């Protein structure tokens, strides 16, 4: 089994530094997901691990072997590309065996390997077709098959599902997870899609502008984000941020939000209050995920609740839940209520907020308090 270690990894293209010193320690068998906005360097980092780009400085180890100067083919990795990158003039069979042919694997071993992966991925009937004659999902499977036959130590995926439609994406996501559970290979997976990240990862690395902002298990990234960036990136719809003022004294602190519709006071639970003691009178950002701004009676017993009323601007039914868009503290905010709640746009609605799950951020640095 192979772990992957990155040590102060940097990469520049000319003057433009894209990866700005990344340390990452990936344990054998882990499924690590890299997420981040477009252009933050996810693909570049993956290419560095694959050996498709040369490091500017730092070290990369795979299975405790320093691979800085090892070409891709000798790194014991396999990669699935966003655009699949199948060989268009070769049949599915030819695509899967190309790597083995260049490595001069014996014919009977090749056939054995092809039949194994094609059964695993249900592509036995497609072996004679060209990539052009396959659907998106089938191409995706072939691309995975091509990676699987290598029997690598580490799998690298670069947004492998982003070209598929929503339904297929969810299906393939489940298959990738099953595959990982079955093979237990170390996997590094790049995606834009934070749902994919949450469902697949054993740990998520949130990247921004060449840095890793936070690296941890999905629940930690979601519930315990280090800063505004991570909090805003994970979750859909994303976390509501309301600018308010800290008021009160001792342990009885609250965030007061003022706008045209009046003043709303969000009392802070003791644990939160303890972190901001002494900052009374200062501005502060209150982070409330949509699912904690909801209808009356939806929260766990014993939670610290707070009510407020706002006129609803837009009602967005999604099926199981209904999203309610309103304005709070001058910014647009979204609450999430069950779908049988009777709500009309333009009318006021009383929300109940679970303050135990509220987060506080320093408005200047964006660091979570």
């Amino acid at each position: 089994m192979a772990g992957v270690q990155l040590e102060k990894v940097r990469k520049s293209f000319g003057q433009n530094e894209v990866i700005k010193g990344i340390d990452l320690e990936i344990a054998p068998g882990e499924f690590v997901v890299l997420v981040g906005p477009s252009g933050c360097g996810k693909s570049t980092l993956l290419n560095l691990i694959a050996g498709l780009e040369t490091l500017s400085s730092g070290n990369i180890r795979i299975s405790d072997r320093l691979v800085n100067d090892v070409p891709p083919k000798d790194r014991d990795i396999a990669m699935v590309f966003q655009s699949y990158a199948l060989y268009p003039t070769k049949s599915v069979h030819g695509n899967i065996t190309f790597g083995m042919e260049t490595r001069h694997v014996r014919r009977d071993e090749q056939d054995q390997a092809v039949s194994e992966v094609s059964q695993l991925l249900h592509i036995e009937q497609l072996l004679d077709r060209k990539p052009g004659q396959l659907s998106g999902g089938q191409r995706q499977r072939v691309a995975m098959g091509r990676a699987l036959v290598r029997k690598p130590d580490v799998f690298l995926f670069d947004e492998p599902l982003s070209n598929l439609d929503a339904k297929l994406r969810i299906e393939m996501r489940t298959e990738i997870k099953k595959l990982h559970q079955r093979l237990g290979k170390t996997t590094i997976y790049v995606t834009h899609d934070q749902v994919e990240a949450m469902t697949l990862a054993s740990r998520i690395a949130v990247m921004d502008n060449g840095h890793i902002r936070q690296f941890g298990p999905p629940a930690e990234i979601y519930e315990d984000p280090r800063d505004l960036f991570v909090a805003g990136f994970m979750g859909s719809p994303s976390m509501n941020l309301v600018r308010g003022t800290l008021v009160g004294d001792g342990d009885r602190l609250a965030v007061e939000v003022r706008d045209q519709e009046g003043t709303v006071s969000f009392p802070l639970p003791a644990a939160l209050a303890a972190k901001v003691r002494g900052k009374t009178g200062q501005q502060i950002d209150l982070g409330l995920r949509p699912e904690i701004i909801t209808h009356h009676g939806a929260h766990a017993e014993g939670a610290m609740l707070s009510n407020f009323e706002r006129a609803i601007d837009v009602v967005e039914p999604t099926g199981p839940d209904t999203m309610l868009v309103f304005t709070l503290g001058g910014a647009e905010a979204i609450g999430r209520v069950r779908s049988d709640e009777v709500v009309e746009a333009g009318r006021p609605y009383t929300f109940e907020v679970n303050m135990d799950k509220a987060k506080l951020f320093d408005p200047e640095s964006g660091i979570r308090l």
Partner: protein
Amino acid sequence: MSRKGIVRRRGAGQAALRLLLYAVLVLFCLVYLLPLVIMVSTSLKSLGEIRTGSLISLPTQVSLDAWLKAWGTACVGVRCKGIAPYMWNSVLMVVPAVLISTLLGAVNGYALTKWRFRGADVIFALMLFGAFIPFQIVLLPMARTLGLFGLAGTTWGLVLVHTVYGLAFTTLFFRNFFVSVSDGIVQAAKIDGAGFFPIFFKLMLPMAVPTIVVTVIWQFTNIWNDFLFGSAFTVGDSNPVTVALNNIVATSTGVKEYNVDMAAAIIAGLPTLAVYVLAGNYFVRGLAAGAVKG
């Protein structure tokens, strides 16, 4: 009128317009075809008929004599063996020149786009510049170079010249094709353990078949039809057919044999015609796919 496709206005006015359109098209067609018709018909007439009849009248008696003479016995300068040996010269020149320049162009285009190195863009710009150099400028330096290589006056010298001057175009064609090929394919192949040439021959060339066809047609036509280099860098026996054709027409012994001239001209043009007929479909498709887009 067809009821398929885009909905059109109908009525007498529209029909008249359509008729006018087709009339104009047919007229242009005739104008375009007339020279060819006259050439063919003249080549099939006897000399007597040419002298007495009018230029556009069809032959009363079809005779292949002029063709046979043009092929086998017409005098090119002092050598009366027809244009057959010169056709052969042209073939010996055009085949290696086309193959080498196409292959090198493909390698260049592939290296410039898929194995990007420092200065690749500068090199490409310089090569592109080569496509715009008027050939007259290079005549003297090229003659000197061929002399130094000991290739002056030989078919191989001509092959070298055409290969060098074709490279700008062939590189351009292939670069424009390979630029549109996903880099991921090359990366995947590198992870699969393939190197520069295995990726080129096993993956890239098979993908580039339409571009290869376009390039071959382009190079074949240009090299076959070239007169300037042929007349400047070869002598007598090693002349390509274009030069020989000129010499047949210019050879002034006795009467001017228009039928032989015409037949020789058609023979000299047949190979390019054949290439178009055989591969023309691809050419149009390649053009449509932007393969020749500058």
